[in-house]
């Protein structure tokens, strides 16, 4: 009698296990699924590529780290605009304490200038890269953020894969700023190399630095376009990215030469081309 019940419970257990394996196997391809081929216009715009849900990496050399951070912040601002109507616009920015010592803490009034509200930015100063990654994972899992941004030194393939899966599962963008020297393989959807670029012209004072510009090189994009390089500009007033000029010998999609789009409607559009 007892043998029989044990037999049935075992078979039930096996059935349950089989089912859960099947579920895992079924859902895995969904997570792994390459994003459908992107529209041409979107594919050529790094600012759009990195707002997709998933893990994105920004790399920069040590001297250019500030530029990469600036680019990431501009991106947060763009994302904030994108998500504001849905009532979700809190971000997490996780960094190591040593990064704060070396490059200072995010500065409220400056964030405000860039279009990120400081009261919606949780800043985390962790002791190690490991803690940064853990915090990012928790941030993605909580489902309360509009995006998570991390600065970490050591990120292995396993860690990036975990982040990548979580980000895809929770339909949220996660950005990692990594030093260029670390060349580990990564499971990120996109990898951008950021370099600073001389700023745009300022109308009021030609001798003064104008709108921030970066040279953005798309090094990797899953299901995206071939690597290319563009110069992008951040508009402080409308809080959106402009593409300045195609530096690679790649034809950009024809963009209508319109004036700035109605604020709040189309968040990011390739605009004025001065190439």
């Amino acid at each position, binding site marked *: 009698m007892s043998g029989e019940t044990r037999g049935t419970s075992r078979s039930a257990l096996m059935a349950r296990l089989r089912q859960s394996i099947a579920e895992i196997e079924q859902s895995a391809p969904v997570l792994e699924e390459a994003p459908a081929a992107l529209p041409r216009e979107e594919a050529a715009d790094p600012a759009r590529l990195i707002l997709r849900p998933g893990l994105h990496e920004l790399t920069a050399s040590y001297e250019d780290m500030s530029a990469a951070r600036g680019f990431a*912040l501009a991106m947060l601002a763009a994302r904030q605009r994108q998500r504001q109507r849905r*009532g979700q616009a809190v971000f997490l920015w996780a960094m190591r304490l040593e990064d704060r010592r070396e490059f200072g803490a995010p500065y409220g009034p400056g964030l405000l200038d860039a279009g990120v509200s400081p009261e919606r930015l*949780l800043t985390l100063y962790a002791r190690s890269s490991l803690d940064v990654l853990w915090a990012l994972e928790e941030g993605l899992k909580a489902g309360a953020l509009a995006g998570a941004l991390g600065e970490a030194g050591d990120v292995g393939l396993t860690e990036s894969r975990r982040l990548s899966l979580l980000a895809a599962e929770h339909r949220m963008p996660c950005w990692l700023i990594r030093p260029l020297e670390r060349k580990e393989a990564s499971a990120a959807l996109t990898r951008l190399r950021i370099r600073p*670029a001389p700023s745009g012209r300022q109308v009021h004072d030609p001798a003064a*630095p104008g709108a921030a510009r970066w040279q953005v090189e798309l090094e990797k994009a899953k299901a995206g376009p071939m690597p290319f390089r563009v110069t992008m500009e951040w508009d402080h007033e409308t809080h959106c990215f402009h593409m300045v000029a195609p530096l690679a010998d790649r034809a950009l999609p024809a963009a209508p030469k319109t004036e700035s789009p109605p604020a709040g409607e189309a968040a990011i559009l390739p605009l004025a081309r001065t190439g």
Partner: protein
Amino acid sequence: MRLHAVDETAARLGLARGMMLTDAKARLPGLLHAPADMEGDRTALQGLAEWCLRYSPFVAADGEDGLLIDATGCAHLFGGEEAMLARMESQFAKLGLKAYLGMAQTVGAASALARFGPPRAIAPQGGVSEALSALPMAALRLEPQVLLLLQRLGLTKIGQLYAMPRLALARRFRSRVAEEAVLFRLDQALGRQPESLNPLHPAPSFRAHAGYSEPVQDLSFLPEVLRRLSADLKSMLVREGQGGTRWTFRALRVDGQVAALSLRTAQPVREEAHLARLFKERFEQMDLGLGAEYFILSADEAVPFTQSQGSWAESEEGGSASGQDEALAGLIDRLSVRLGAEALRLQGPCDSHVPERAVHSRPALEGAAMKEAAWSSSPSLPSAPLRSPPPRPLRPLRLLTKPEPIEVMAEVPDGPPMHFRWRHVPHQVTRAEGPERIAPEWWRLQDGIFEEVRDYFRIEDVRGRRYWVFRAGLYQDRAQARAQDRTFPGGAPSWFLHGFFA
């Protein structure tokens, strides 16, 4: 040197506390002795008091060698007063301690019975004076000189005091202080004077506890313990409409030590799942030693529980906003618990024009207070004409905690630097905006804090890196200061790098 404490064998052989060490050694040449560790004793007693939280939430150390436990309403949990004392004795015995126990309606009587009464003495309801009558005067917690005085008067037993009229008693003493002390202690013991114990911990608002017959040694069992306790606590909290904001989880170990975890939450909490997540990160810090057999979870601070404490994100649909808020509060709790409350921060504006004092950053756990001090200009969608210049010059995205000195070459008085060297790397400036003059706040000057006027420049180097630098001091000011005070370092003002732009 005198004896501070003696064990049972030594006491049987005639040694007693207060005896000279040399006398004792003369009597017993083989005597083993060690210097008294008063500090260690005190710490151990405190630890033991924590451990006694299993009997009652109100526990206090009594002098150097006693513990007071307010057992009001607790005895029935152990099956009556006798059973409670028997349990205590056996549990202390397991720790290797011989406990002398006494129980009475008043602190004074309990203390007297424990120290001088029969084993596990319990003064029956209304029978305190009878129970105390045969005890020596020393049981009344009196000073040695008062005891000596009583002895001279032929008063040795507490009972002798009862029959004596109070006035007669007062007349017998020469010293008023002694008289008052005796009457006061007697009244305390008999309950005519109130006396309360000063508990180790303030009363927790809510408390749940559970004992296990087998000591728990495996940390992986703790989540189960916590689940059981938090389920109990939740029903209490729900009944009262409260949620806890400060929590303590104590594990009372079999060796008489206590391992405890405390944490705070941003919002009132009562869900088991939430607590489980918060404590999960910390369980590994608990040292269970040889095992713990008793666990207490307490909500030390509780506030009325509301579903949503204001909204972080103004949602137009409204529906999911509170869910979002809860998820966000949960995230803040989790990160703060694991990485420390100081690690996760939010910034608020401060009323100052000096850049480093224009913001203050606070732990996100205190976020509720933060929301009041909102940033003046909201970066919501700009709908007004966009082409007007910003009201004040741009601020950097990151600000160094301490401005770093830079070496400036090719300087133009009152102009931006042309070349500078920062962290050993030379930079050639191509564009610059400024100066933006930021003067020190005069009220700080009044307080004797000297700060120089700063001229800030927003500069860009050849590669397109953008920095915020400033020159401290003015050329003419420095010359003047040098003329007035020879010790002032004259010469050219110094330059600093303070922040980074995008």
